[in-house]
């Protein structure tokens, strides 16, 4: 196991520019810098096209940076890619495997490329696919294929694991089971994990630190708790009202930063009963003010709920856009 004080990944001023098919250049990364400590679970959160995969593929040595520096466990992939390949495990966002080899044979083949390897049976056991060891990849379900690609990333018992959107497209049950596996790899086996995702709950649950990436730039980088604590609006209050409500009245309440009517209404006045969401800076003050207002206006509030802030709100605040726009 490696020391926690050691750096597993160092990225300095990473720039990537692609030529556009129709002419001109696309700047995919604008000089991003960050570090990941050995043993850390680090998340890259951002929408599609933010530059997450480009950044990860440069670190993995698949792509060359336009400028900037990368080190994986102190090794520069530009000059010593073979060494980096030996210590890292990679799960690509979209990858296929040799179609006429069973999953056990693929793991055996891939493992044979490395000086240090884990047995296929042990890996398949780890990801819960031992009973499928004689199956071809195409015979696995989507969730099983994702779990297999994580197993394939572990064949060389890597110190650092890069996972590119490992749970995209999985149903909630499969997603939770993969989260458990990743948590175990990080906490019990001490693996450094760098994961990209556009699921804020995934980043929030798994990652010790999160970098919020948007349009090729890191907008913020910290623990999920610190990022959420730094929100101007600390959270939300959601409720349904027995009668239509003017959101400007709600927005004016003490402790409330903004108010919107939901259920598809873009609220332009009194459109009928709806649910409402208030962005609040001081939840306690806002709830008190809301209850007073309801009493005074005769509105009956139903299903009132105080929801804490999320990384989604952090993203919205930093970029002015929804994470999944």
């Amino acid at each position, binding site marked *: 196991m490696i020391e926690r004080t050691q750096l597993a990944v160092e990225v300095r001023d990473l720039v990537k520019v692609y030529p556009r098919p129709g002419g001109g250049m696309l700047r995919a990364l604008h000089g991003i810098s960050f570090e990941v400590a050995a043993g850390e679970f680090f998340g890259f959160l951002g929408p599609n096209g933010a530059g997450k995969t480009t950044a990860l593929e440069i670190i993995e040595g698949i792509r060359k940076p336009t400028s900037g520096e990368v080190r994986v466990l102190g090794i520069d992939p530009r000059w010593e890619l073979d060494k980096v390949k030996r210590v890292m495990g990679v799960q*690509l966002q979209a990858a296929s*495997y040799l179609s006429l*080899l069973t999953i056990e*044979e693929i793991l055996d*083949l891939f493992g044979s*490329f*490395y000086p240090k390897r884990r047995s296929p049976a042990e890996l398949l056991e780890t990801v819960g696919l031992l009973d499928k060891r004689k199956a071809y990849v195409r015979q696995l379900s989507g969730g099983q294929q994702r779990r297999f690609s994580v197993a394939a990333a572990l064949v060389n018992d890597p110190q650092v694991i890069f996972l590119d959107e490992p749970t995209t497209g999985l149903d909630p049950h499969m997603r939770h089971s993969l989260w458990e596996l990743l948590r175990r790899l990080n906490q019990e086996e001490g693996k450094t994990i760098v994961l990209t995702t556009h699921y804020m709950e995934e980043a929030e649950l798994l990652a010790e630190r999160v970098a919020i990436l948007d349009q090729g730039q890191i907008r913020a980088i910290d623990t999920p708790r610190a990022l959420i604590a730094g929100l101007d609006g600390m959270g939300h209050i959601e409720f349904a009202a027995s009668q239509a409500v003017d959101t400007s009245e709600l927005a004016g309440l003490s402790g409330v930063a903004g108010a919107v009517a939901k259920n598809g209404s873009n609220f332009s006045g009194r459109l009928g009963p709806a649910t409402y969401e208030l962005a609040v800076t001081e939840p306690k003050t806002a709830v008190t003010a809301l209850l007073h207002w309801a009493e005074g206006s005769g509105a009956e509030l139903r299903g009132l709920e105080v929801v804490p802030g999320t990384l989604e709100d952090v993203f919205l605040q930093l970029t002015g856009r929804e994470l999944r726009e």
Partner: protein
Amino acid sequence: MTAIVGTLRMAGASTRQLLRSSEVWTTMVLFPGALLAILWLFSGLRFEGAREAIPLMDLWVTGMGVLSVALGNGHAFLANIATWKAGGVLKRISVTPITPGQLIIGEVIPRAVMGMITILGFLVVGGALGADIRIGPEIIAVIPVMAMVTFIGISVAFIIAGLTRTPQNANALDSAISFPLYLFTGAMFPLSAFPGWLEAAARFIPYTGLIATVRGIVLDGRPLTDFGPELAIPAAWMVLLVLVAARVYRFVK
């Protein structure tokens, strides 16, 4: 892991895949069998040229046999790697310590073996159907020639896969290249029947010398060492094509 061990591992995996695929039957049995059956229909005909008269069966069993093995192998391999590239198989392999060179050689080994077995079978059955093939120890000399045939076919496949973006484009380019080869390499018609300038130009096609060598060995019983000049051009092509393939082919789109 040494480079040799990695290459042999890839070769083992490729062999296992080949044996499980329908491709092996198509390439080794169905296609050569159908071709031989068609050629047999013409077994009584002769090609009457200005300088010589050659039984079509002799000409085609040796010429089309060699070329169809090369192109069939290259075509099947191209379909594989174009699909691997589009589907991300190669990208996944690229993050392992395996190099493109190891992957290429690992693929060539089982296909070269398959090509040799196929051509030997083709010549033997062709001989039984009426072609004047010498079935003796000299036929073994065909094996290194077929290794060159396979190497060239697979290098061309890598170049096509490197130059094209989709499996469909790769297939179209491959077909466009393949058809003229039957006409201009001497596979269907003897080079001596071509106009002088075309005959001279055709000798620079990589397969032309290889077909001439196979013919010389199995029809005339000449030793392989007689074919230095015929083999020099394909050998030069082989080196050039491997270098170009390594340059234009990328694991990642």
